[in-house]
């Protein structure tokens, strides 16, 4: 039998520097310069801020081009669930975007033999003025369902979402939890032969995430083929029958989910206490907000990669807001080395703009994770910034592995461990919990 997905030498070249800064004015200037035979203005600009080192293995054939994906070949049989893991910028999303036809490959080809649906985001196309019912139809159709299909699954979708009472209420009156539930309910009822999923499980509360994972498992049991991109190693291990690791655009490993996850975690993340993006265009974010630097510091205000469990950790990020009129929420995630979230914190309560629109300008946000809280291990910091609306959350910035540091527990009787001499890597949190031990008189 022919594989349901065949990928052959798929590559994608990105051109940096020409990103959206294009204005009609610039083009006119270039044209004018060409007439006068003088060097064009934008070429000047881009050569003075060359962003890719030509010796970089990812560098493309021309200056400022980058192979986001290079010579990926793979065959997947029907019913298999392929996990795709890799660090930021490894090409996972690019691969998914090519397979979903959102963008074209530069070379190579792929054949998908079956009805395909993609889930790169939930709630795509939701309109706040429309009711839950209307949005189910609209969102379903955007994801590729026919109206008849939605009709037949409508009751199930409403049941799954758990909000039948509000189905005729405009979604702008929904809480963000209800919004996510409804959006996922629609997505969960897609029944394609091939499903391409990107990390959508990272939403909602734990209970709901469990429900979603369960749903995904059911879907896979029914013989459908799934491509699943995730940072959640636990989910990869639970769901996938095989897994590939991408690194800098290339496929560096393929095998069982177990072995891939082991290799991925074994390679370890290189520690970095600071990350700075020098160029606005490559800084993570969009037209509304971009992050320029993230670092993690001790009390001495210097970025570090090693912390004692008794050190407080201050995470600092600097960002620029380019547009007025957005109420932003900044979140910091702490991931353990299995890729699970240990802690999430938001700035809403303490920021002066926590409950109102933030004016444009540059900002520095700091938060301190108290000493004596996080257990030994490698901690990776994720950053998210988004606009908070009455019923929606629009993400502007998502950074995984922004900084990575190690927390260690010195063998020191003053520490939380007291004089317990062995490795103690149980649980993500280890704080000093007061004990009272008494001898009972007989």
């Amino acid at each position, binding site marked *: 039998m*022919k594989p349901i997905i*065949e990928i*052959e030498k798929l590559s994608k070249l*990105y*051109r940096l520097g*020409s*990103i*959206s800064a*294009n*204005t*009609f*004015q610039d*083009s006119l200037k270039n044209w004018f310069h060409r007439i006068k035979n003088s060097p064009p203005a934008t070429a000047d600009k881009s050569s003075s801020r060359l962003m890719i080192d030509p010796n970089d293995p990812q560098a493309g054939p021309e200056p400022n081009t980058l192979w986001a994906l290079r010579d990926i*070949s793979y*065959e997947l049989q029907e019913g298999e669930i392929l996990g795709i893991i890799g660090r930021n910028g490894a090409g996972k999303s690019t691969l998914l*975007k*090519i*397979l*979903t*036809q*959102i*963008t*074209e*490959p*530069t*070379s*190579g*080809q*792929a*054949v*998908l*033999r*079956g*009805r*395909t649906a*993609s889930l*790169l*985001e939930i709630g*795509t*196309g939701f*309109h706040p*003025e*429309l009711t839950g019912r*209307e949005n189910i*139809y*609209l969102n379903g*159709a*955007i*994801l*590729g*369902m*026919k*109206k008849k299909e939605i009709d037949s699954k409508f009751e199930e979708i409403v049941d799954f979402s758990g909000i039948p009472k509000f189905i005729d209420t*405009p979604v702008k009156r929904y809480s963000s939890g209800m919004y996510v539930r409804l959006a996922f309910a629609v997505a969960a009822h897609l029944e394609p*032969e091939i499903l391409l999923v990107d990390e959508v499980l990272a939403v909602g509360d734990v209970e709901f995430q469990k429900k979603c994972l369960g749903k995904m498992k059911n879907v896979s049991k029914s013989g459908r083929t799934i491509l699943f991109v995730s940072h959640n190693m636990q989910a990869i291990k639970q769901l996938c029958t095989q897994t590939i690791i991408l690194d800098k655009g290339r496929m560096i490993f393929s095998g069982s989910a177990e072995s891939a996850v082991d290799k991925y975690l074994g390679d370890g993340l290189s520690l970095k206490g600071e990350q700075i993006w020098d160029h606005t265009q490559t800084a993570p974010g969009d037209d509304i907000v971009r992050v320029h630097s993230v670092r993690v510091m001790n009390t001495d205000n210097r970025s570090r990669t090693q912390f004692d469990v008794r050190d407080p950790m201050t995470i600092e990020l600097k960002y620029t807001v380019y547009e007025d009129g957005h109420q932003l929420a900044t979140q910091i995630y702490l991931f353990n080395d299995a890729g699970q979230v240990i802690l999430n914190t938001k700035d809403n309560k303490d920021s002066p703009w926590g409950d109102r629109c933030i004016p444009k300008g540059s900002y520095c946000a700091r938060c301190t994770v108290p000493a004596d809280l996080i257990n030994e291990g490698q901690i990776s910091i994720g950053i998210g910034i988004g606009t908070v609306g009455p019923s929606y959350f*629009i993400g502007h910035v998502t950074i995984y592995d922004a900084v990575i540091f190690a927390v260690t527990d010195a063998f020191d009787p003053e520490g939380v461990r007291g004089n317990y001499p062995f490795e103690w890597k149980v649980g993500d949190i280890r704080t000093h919990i007061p004990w009272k031990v008494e001898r009972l008189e007989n």
Partner: protein
Amino acid sequence: MNPINQETTSSYQIHIRPNKSWHHMNWHAIWEYRDLLFLLVRRDFVSKYKQTILGPLWFILQPLATTIVFTVVFSRVARIPTDSIPPMLFYLCGLIGWMYFANCLNYTSTTFVTNAGIFNKVYFPRLIIPFSVIISRFLAFIIQFVMFIGFYIFYKFFTPASDTFHLNPAALIFFPLLIMLTALLGLGMGLWLSALTAKYRDLTQLTTFLTSLWMYATPVIYPLSLIPAKWHKVMALNPMAGIVEAYRYCFFSVTVGNLFFYMLSSIIMTLIILISGILIFNKTERNFIDTI
């Protein structure tokens, strides 16, 4: 790996590869997504009137208020002739035809910019969006047209001006074609502009400004008969000139002798703009995501 074999048993097969030829259009896929088309039309329409107090009344108020302003300024003050048709009717007729065109153009011209979020996350034939715009704008046109018929009946039967104009049944046969021509021209121009605004964001501001100027180059506030004979060839270069005049010809039977020449020019230009617009839109659709 063996070269990828295209024969298959499944009815669905997607073959992904670079540089599909420039004229490749997947019309079949658009048909597959027809349900989405109608849901988008519904969304446009419903969301527009849910946000306002007056609701669908806005569709009527806007051309009505503009017509009253035109009547005062251009007819009473500037004394621009209206082919002896009651000024109110004259402006209203030209205006709703023009507005259908201008709305199609303006709302499709921002297709890429306003839908970047969706386009970045899910694939469907992008032409669905502009198509949904011309259909939902058509619904607004219908509402406005019904209002026009109301005024038409009023002027025809209840005012002394009734002899100055009469219906032209022969021309009315072509009325549906005329509406289609208006929509397709607006679509074609909008597709062109959407491709340009995807590349040059600063053109967005220019679009609305240019369309309002374009209206004055079109016989909306003046009859074509006001144009000196030697300028007709220049005037016919504006594809909307003939279309707006033809709207009035259908209902008032008054026009200049060479309307046929104007219409021929409109049809040819519409076809050129539309076909080239679809091609350039199609080209933009394929690499737009890489530039945002």
